[in-house]
């Protein structure tokens, strides 16, 4: 049986009248890449800060590696790698020195440390920048340095709090690939983000958070199965009589139809060959149509259906 690395039970954190975490519970097993997905202000970073014992909480228990986590749990902290949302590096130290500084807080042996620092530099692709000062690095490279500082000591548990915010696509891909590599090497990963594509891409299990509560948890397939929508069909069409729209709405597994800007949107729940059946109706009524495409549900659909609001709307 896989070991439980993180166990959070009934965590409550209040800021005055605002409840930041509302009886939040979570269990993460060894070897998982666990995603915490939610809009800004949903409680992701608060959860991480409580987990790291930086933030005092009102109620609840937190265990890491089977032990209660406290601010002086130095033996636990030794096995944790933290990549903060805000880049936390020394402006006046070079790339190499920054990584060496943070690695040195965990690894005493100088030879071993040198080796680890070199590996970390290679891992994040900063070989050509080792003598650079952080202010000379682009946003993406700076994020990579931030990651190198957090993982150089080869931790068993890596916590990444929105590591790809304001990062260019190239660096983002590199970071995501790096996280998958770290996981392959045995690290358990907690990954918080409000970018659902990222979470969907790398996480083995996901918890969706909203207003300090966990609203859903499972693998991405499990989450998608929780909702009604299984397929959304979109067809570009100029004319669509109401009678035809009514006929499509009556098709098996179709639970919603919409007309939006010369587009027909058909939402289906379960079933197979939904697209063929819709196109048959259009052909039978001799209606011409343009582009046709079909989409499987996303985590945004999951979030939308569970909370009644789109994740991106919340970002706005």
């Amino acid at each position, binding site marked *: 049986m896989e070991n439980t690395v993180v166990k959070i039970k009934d965590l409550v954190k209040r800021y005055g009248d605002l409840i930041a975490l509302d009886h939040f519970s979570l269990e993460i097993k060894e070897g998982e890449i666990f995603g915490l997905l939610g809009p800004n202000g949903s409680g992701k970073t608060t959860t991480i800060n409580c987990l790291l014992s930086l933030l005092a909480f009102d109620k609840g228990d937190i265990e890491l590696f089977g032990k209660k986590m406290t601010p002086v749990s130095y033996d636990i902290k030794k096995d944790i790698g933290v990549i903060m949302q805000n880049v936390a590096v020394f402006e006046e130290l070079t790339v190499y020195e920054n990584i060496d500084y943070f690695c040195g807080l*965990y690894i005493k042996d100088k030879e071993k440390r040198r080796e680890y620092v070199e590996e970390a530099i290679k891992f994040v692709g900063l070989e050509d920048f080792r003598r650079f000062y952080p202010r000379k690095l682009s946003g993406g490279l700076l994020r990579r340095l931030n990651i190198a500082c957090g993982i150089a000591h080869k931790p068993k548990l890596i916590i990444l709090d929105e590591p790809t915010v304001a990062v260019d696509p190239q660096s983002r891909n590199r970071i995501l690939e790096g996280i998958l590599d770290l996981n392959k090497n045995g690290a358990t990963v907690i990954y918080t983000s409000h970018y659902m594509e990222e979470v969907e891409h790398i996480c083995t299990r996901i918890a969706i958070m909203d207003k300090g509560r966990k609203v859903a948890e499972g693998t991405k397939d499990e989450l998608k199965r929780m909702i009604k929508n299984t397929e959304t069909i979109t067809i570009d069409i100029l004319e669509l009589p109401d009678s035809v729209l009514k006929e499509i709405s009556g098709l098996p597994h179709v639970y919603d139809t919409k007309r939006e800007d010369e587009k027909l949107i058909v939402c289906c729940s379960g079933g197979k060959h939904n697209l063929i059946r819709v196109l048959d109706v259009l052909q039978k009524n001799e209606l011409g149509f343009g582009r046709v495409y079909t989409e499987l549900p996303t985590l945004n659909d999951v979030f939308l259906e569970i909370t009644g609001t789109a994740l991106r709307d919340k970002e706005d």
Partner: protein
Amino acid sequence: MFLHILKYELKNSLRVKEITVWLIIFPIALGICFKIAFGSIYEKTEKFSAIPVAVVENTENAAFRQVMENIGKSDEPFLKVSFTDMDGAEKMLDNGDVEGIIVSDGKLSLTVKEKGLRETMLKSFLEQYTVREKIAMDAINTAPEKAQEVIEALTGETVSSCREIPLTQGNPDMYIQYFYNLIAMVALFGCNIGMHITIQNQADLSALGARNNCSPARKSVSILACFTGSCIMQTFCMILCVSFLAFVLKVDFGDRLYLVYPAAIMGGILGVSFGFFVGSIARVGEKTKTAILTAFALLLCFCSGLMMGDMKAVIVEKMPWFNNINPAAVISDCFYCLNIYEDYDRFVTKLITMAVTTFIFVFLGFVFSRRKKYASI
């Protein structure tokens, strides 16, 4: 762990531009400005050049001639004497080569072209000489056996009726105080390095603080290493500052230079601990904290008379207790004692006051920074 953090604290501090500017470049630049400004004033007010004077001997006066020749031969001559005839003397006076003409023809008389300080000094000299010559002649005529004793007493006596009794072996001129104030100000600027210790170690103040709190390094060790590094850096800056003033600008600290160093170093450490204390007492952003600390430091400097000399007297009169706890005042008082008093008692007392104040600041700083968890980040 301690040495690892200390090593990087020193590396980081050495490269921080603000430290270089405020603790190294600023005192050097201001010291040069002081030297240029006060140097010219000093030359004008303190350093005399010998007064050129022409002596015309219409009758022989061996005693007077000897006195004038001796004056001209001394290390720092008061007069630059030219023996000549009346025509030559008048020509020299017209050309401005001499300030006056002393004519000896039975009695001594002085001719000057215009009135001024140097002419007054010539007149005063001549009057004093005439009086003393008369005393000596009276002694020879009335009590020849005592004549030698009287002449020796007259030649040994200073021209002024007031005698300067130094209280210290330092340099008590008023301009040196500005350089002491400069050192005190640099010492207090160490508060910015001190505040950086808190910023770097408090999770609620910076991302770096939060990151450091996640590591297995004990907070007390981390703070102690940063504090040690900051004190080393500040000490280096203080030594550099004092050495630059003493050896490059040739500021005369008297024979107490060796005491200026410990006072400056102790003052610097007090400045660091003050910043550490202020940094740990309130939870506001780094920039706000820096602004508050700088304003506070400048206010303390103002109250201690570092900017306006009279202010210190006002504070001493109205709020003497404040003067005893104001770090800027304690540092400047230490230098003041060194400069004014001959004994070391007051100086040592001020050094001890600085050490105790430092200890209190560091202790309170540690107490306020001991928080392990934060209500909000």
